């Protein structure tokens, strides 16, 4: 359907915009518009169950807005003759059963005009919601309590964790997966038992439904979940490790590093490391070659955080810009 600001004719579908939402009706003449309820601004106090098909004059229909006239296109289907449209609309006067998603003024106008209910507005909002960029980052402290490895899904991941020689590593990996479970449920309402995890040749775990990335350091775990490829890394600032990181800085980074004051050098180097890790994790293939990964790119978000007196650097990377929602210090059981 195309829309114009022309003068409406008998049987035309018309609409008016109120703050981004359209109210629809069938035009008979200036004194008679058939519509499913008045515009929302004029019926605020009514319950949905009280809204009914009624007529009003054009002024009441518009409530001060601008009238638009629908011009059907081929894809809309076959339009009824104007007389039939009006007859059908009038036959529905007094009908109730309003529902904002399934039976609203637009459904009614389309039904009168084409014989089939349709709501482009609800379809558009649904599509917009499904494609909204989402990037949530979760952090949690690893608890001291005992953990039940049998709760890990899928089985292959459980086996993988069990095969770790160190109890400390087992614990870290268990709680990282537990935080992933929490994140997938909170961000996307996914249940672990309904998901089909796949493991790539590189050993990286993937989901067909969304992207995720996991990291742990000291007593902290971090998880990022997103609709786009994402990498996350958390590292405790440890001066002992910094000389190794210094060796993998690119030329540009070395220049930057030269200008960093002594007391901020450890944090700077840890930041560069987490940036390189995050960029690598968001990718699909290859080996981790930190010395070749340039960090002067868009999509990196880094912050310093202090948990239990320990300074950490938390970095998340996604090539597609998304507002990031940080959910820190999640309590894991």
């Amino acid at each position: 359907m195309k829309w114009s600001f022309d003068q409406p004719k008998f049987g035309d579908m018309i609409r008016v915009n109120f703050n981004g939402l359209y109210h629809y009706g069938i035009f008979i003449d200036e004194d008679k518009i058939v519509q499913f309820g008045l515009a929302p601004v004029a019926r605020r106090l009514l319950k949905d169950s009280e809204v009914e098909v009624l007529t009003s004059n054009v002024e009441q229909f518009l409530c001060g807005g601008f009238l638009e006239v629908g011009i059907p296109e081929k894809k809309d289907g076959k339009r009824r003759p104007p007389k039939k449209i009006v007859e059908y609309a009038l036959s529905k006067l007094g009908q109730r059963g309003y529902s904002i998603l399934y039976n609203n003024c637009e459904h009614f106008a389309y039904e009168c005009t084409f014989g089939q209910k349709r709501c482009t507005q609800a379809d558009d909002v649904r599509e917009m919601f499904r494609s909204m960029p989402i990037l949530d980052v979760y952090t949690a402290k690893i608890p001291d309590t005992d953990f039940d490895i049998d709760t890990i899904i899928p089985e292959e991941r459980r086996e993988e964790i069990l095969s770790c020689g160190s109890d400390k590593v087992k614990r870290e990996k268990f709680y990282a997966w537990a935080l992933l479970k929490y994140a997938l449920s909170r961000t996307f309402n996914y249940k672990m038992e309904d998901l089909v995890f796949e493991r790539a040749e590189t050993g990286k775990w993937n989901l067909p439904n969304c992207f995720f990335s996991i990291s742990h350091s000291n007593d902290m775990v971090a998880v990022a979940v997103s609709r786009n490829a994402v990498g996350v890394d958390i590292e405790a600032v440890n001066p002992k490790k910094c000389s190794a990181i210094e060796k993998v800085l690119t030329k540009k980074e070395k220049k930057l590093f030269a200008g960093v004051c002594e007391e901020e050098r450890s944090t700077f180097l840890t930041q560069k490391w987490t940036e390189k890790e995050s960029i690598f994790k968001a990718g699909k293939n290859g080996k981790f070659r930190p010395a070749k990964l340039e960090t002067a790119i868009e999509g990196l978000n880094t912050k310093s955080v202090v948990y239990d007196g320990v300074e950490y650097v938390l970095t998340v990377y996604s090539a597609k810009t998304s507002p990031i929602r940080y959910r820190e210090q999640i309590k894991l059981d």
Partner: protein
Amino acid sequence: MTREEITVKLKDLFDLVLKDDDSPDLELTEDTNLVTDMGLSSVGVLYAVVAVEEFFNIRFDDVGFSDFSTVKDVIDYIEKKVNA
């Protein structure tokens, strides 16, 4: 799904679809009124209903959204539907 989980997820969802980037997070409690406290407009209602349907995988097909006054009413409905 527990009531607490639904409450957390509903608040996240309303923050995602109803608030501007720069505005503070919504202060939601079960007593929060959808119209007088949250100021939900008709557009806001459409966004909220679609978001809740899509996220919780339910349909508001047996109730009008205007039948809900408070956040508690919405949580009650979701709780009934997802645990049915």
